[in-house]
């Protein structure tokens, strides 16, 4: 069972308090964009996901805690959370993910 850092509570909480909520950073098109979108583009938005192997941006919901949705970077191979961040922040860059990984490793080493 994971320990997941909720960026709103700002603490690690056990996985049972959370629910997975799909891949992150799929922004719903505005009404105008929707009306101009082709059926193919709309289908792609609706149904196609990367399902990435490796570091994956995904949404989690702290439903049995603060009730907030947030984003996380989790490695789908090792099942390790690299970082979590608040909803609305832009996708994490490789640099930011690297930095988070290093901080995490440092914390582990010092504990």
């Amino acid at each position, binding site marked *: 069972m994971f320990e997941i850092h909720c960026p709103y509570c700002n603490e690690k909480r056990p996985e049972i308090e959370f629910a997975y909520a799909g891949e992150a950073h799929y922004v*719903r098109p*505005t009404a105008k964009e929707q009306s101009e979108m082709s*059926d193919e583009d709309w289908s792609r938005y*609706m149904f196609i996901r990367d399902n990435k192997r490796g570091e994956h941006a995904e949404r989690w*919901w702290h439903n049995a805690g603060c009730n907030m949705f947030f984003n996380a970077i989790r490695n789908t191979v090792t099942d390790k959370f690299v970082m979590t961040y608040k909803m*609305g922040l832009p996708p994490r860059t490789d640099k930011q993910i690297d930095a988070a990984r290093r901080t995490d490793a440092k914390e*582990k080493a010092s504990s």
Partner: protein
Amino acid sequence: MSAFRKTGRGRVDASKVINFTFDGKSYQGVQGDTVASALLANGNHLMGRSFKYHRPRGVLGAGWEEPNALIAVDRGKGRVTPNVRATTQEIYEGLKAESQNRSPNLKFDMGAFNNAFSMFFPAGFYNKTFMWPKSFWDKVYEPFIRNMAGLGPAPDADDPDVYASVYGHCETLIIGAGPAGIAAALAAAKNGERIILVDENAQMGGSLLSTPSIEIDGKPAGKWLETSLKALAKAENVTLMTRTTATGYYHDNFVALAERITHHVPNAEIGKVREALHRIRAGKVILAQGGIERPLVFNGNDRPGVMLASAAQTYLGEYGVAVGNEVAVFTSHDSAYQAAFDVADANTRIAAIIDVRGTIRDDLIMGATERGIKVIKSAAITKTFGKLRVKACEVYEPESGNKTKLNCDAILMSGGWTPSLHLWSHSKGGIKWDADLAAYIPDAPNENAVCIGACNGDFGIAAALSAGHKAGGGRKTYKTNETDFGTGLVLSSLPSYLDSSKQKAFVDFQNDVTEKDIKLAVSEGFKSIEHVKRYTTNGMATDQGKTSNLNALEIASKAVGKPIEKVGLTTFRPPYTPTTFGTFTGYRDNELFDPTRKTPIDPWAEANGAAFEPVGHWRRAWYFPKEGEDMHAAVARECKATRDSLGIFDASTLGKIEVVGPDAAKFMNLMYTNPWSKLPVLGCRYGLMCREDGYIYDDGVVGRMAEDRFHVTTTTGGAPRVYRHMEDYLQTEFPELDVWLTSTTEQWAVIAINGPNARKLIEPFVEGIDLSADSFPHMTLREGKICGVPTRLFRVSFTGELGFEINVPAHYGRMVWETLFEEGQKYDICPYGTETMHVLRAEKGFIIVGQDTDGTVTAHDAGMSWAVSKKKRDFVGKRSLARPDLVAEGRKQLIGLLTEDSKEVLEEGAQIVEDPNQPIPMDMLGHVTSSYWSESLGRSIAMAVVRDGFNRMGETLNIPMPDKVIKAKVVKPVFYDPKGERLNVV
């Protein structure tokens, strides 16, 4: 004293005699014995029958790895535990143990005929046999397989025992209290952090328990152990747990510990905790699980009396039991010599040490010579003799071709050692092949964890102690007087003159997998070790391949012709050892297993004889049968009473969400297909919700309490997902909207009053609300009081009758219900349940989301285009509703069906076809979604989704049933009062 008990040996208390039974026969053991050690002390090796061939089996090991000696412990009704290892079950006064997998008894087993026909049970025999004829499945094959499947008896009554569930936290969790684990705890205890040290056995000490001759830093091992455990017990920051198995290692150092509390206690009371599951979150995990000796794979290696060399050492050292009078030792590893010496030193004759290897360490040869033990080098055992116990073996020397028969009543074998990587592997720690050890050892960790001692490939007591101390943060180096643990030779096949197809050389003893089976699997094309495992079932029994995995791997790798490290190891999965359902369940059994939600009015329904049905997590009154009534009769009566005069219904389970804020109407516009901006305050509207895919997701009546406040109702089962759906959009897509959502499902009790007398009933109890039809029209709501308590009173109807839904704070629900019910006697008020509610709504053609829709039905398909705003620029699902598939002609659409024979009630789910004479598979048009007997109409009614249904009005369709074809006419799905006049009775 029994024949094989060695006075002065072992750690058992020989002065305390304990009586127990095995298969009904009385035996005596002593305090500290296991069932296996006590039976061996009585000279009894035969303890089980094998799974597939029902071959007689004795103990192979002395601990948790035991594959053969599985017993059922019978403690009375509902308290029979099957598949307990005889090697780990401590005896207690009055213990009743039974052998398994035999009929009528262990010595004479009818199932052993499988052994004679073993050529018909090769690897994959399930896949190869029982194929045809099809008709044999039900009557012949399935009963046969069922009879054969499984080992112990399944429980046939509720388990009355109590199982506990505990959470725990510590900085360091040490698993395994052998020399490595104890040394780690001693070092770690010094820094004051919380430490938990667990061991699956009754006594801590691991290998130190059975090696009394060892001295640690000049002190006898027993003394060192005693001092160390005392020190740990005294340390306040250390928790010692015995009889506790770490069964699984999960993410982020979360480890499950199964503690057996009363398994060793006579007459354990019902009501006292029997087992406890500890969920431990640890900062660091130190794995000191030790190693498991490997059997040698030779013809006849499963004869009772053949066992692991280390097991014999344990029986002697820990229990003071000799495993025979004349013992042969067969080995490819140095460690077996020490076992042989221990046995010899206890005055048991060693018939010979048969070593596969040609070169043997001098000190070992010397030790043998000193004791007068004959060592036969470069030799192998090729046959064993004896029926229920080994009585001789054949020793074959390939160089000379000599074959000698050697009398013996036990054979100790050693094929080297396998580090226990189970938990390390659960934690997804890396592993690497160690060619010298011929075993996998830990590589890079995935968690904050470390393997020490034998499970890290560091064999020997001194090595374990020093590694343990280091892992605990210490620096001590320990010295012992042990002989070098030594090395061995791992062979995928032993020398033999016999054709391999003629041999019964067992690899997996519990699942009866032989060397031949593994070779066969490879020759049939199963090259991956994962496939070989599944095809042969090697390593898939309850022992999870603890003694067999590495041997199977050796054999498979040779057969495939690839080096072993290229073949790979199969995955270890939790639990490490079989764990009872009770342990997993803990306190959450019976009513706590999946808690039932009940409304405030539920106790009244129960007292008034309601039949209940589960709806989501709720239990709801289904119908209220009067004496002698079945459901059909009760529902017919309830429907009639409601339509004729007055019905009362508990609708408290309806999901309720309060949507509040300056942007509440904007948010409602986005979440529901209907328009909300113009809904006046105190107006109600039926709301239809889609997901982004455009299909119907939920529905319910919504009341506008104020400009900025909506009282939203959802379906009973849909409340949690609708709330989540709303929160998700509010937080992530529309965060600019100023809205709060609050789930209020359990804050309100809801009483639905329906029927022509509804208004008359409530009038005397209502304050502050003008109930007249003109000032309180259908689909509006009012706030006021009823029975003296605040209410949100909705004038709505799910039955087509004049109706009110009375919302009151939940704790007033029962009082209001009972008050109205009493007054209602004037109007022959009838309480009704969900079944009548379903019939009444179906008569009106109102849909139930999830029954008449299934996640592929749009509003248009359901005939509810009127509920979808054409003017709104955006709502969730709008764009998808324009997808070509969703606007296509001929989709399945919701229609009504009237059977030609009005008494015929269709089955829900029945398929609908155009031409019942078509050959199967017929072209299916759709299916029946709702079907009832309508008492009001005096006939059956049904709803169905049918391809191009709207264009089929008046057509007759066919519903083929096993015994007949039912004809039904397509109609509009409003069967009763299509003009809606009954809503307006005055």
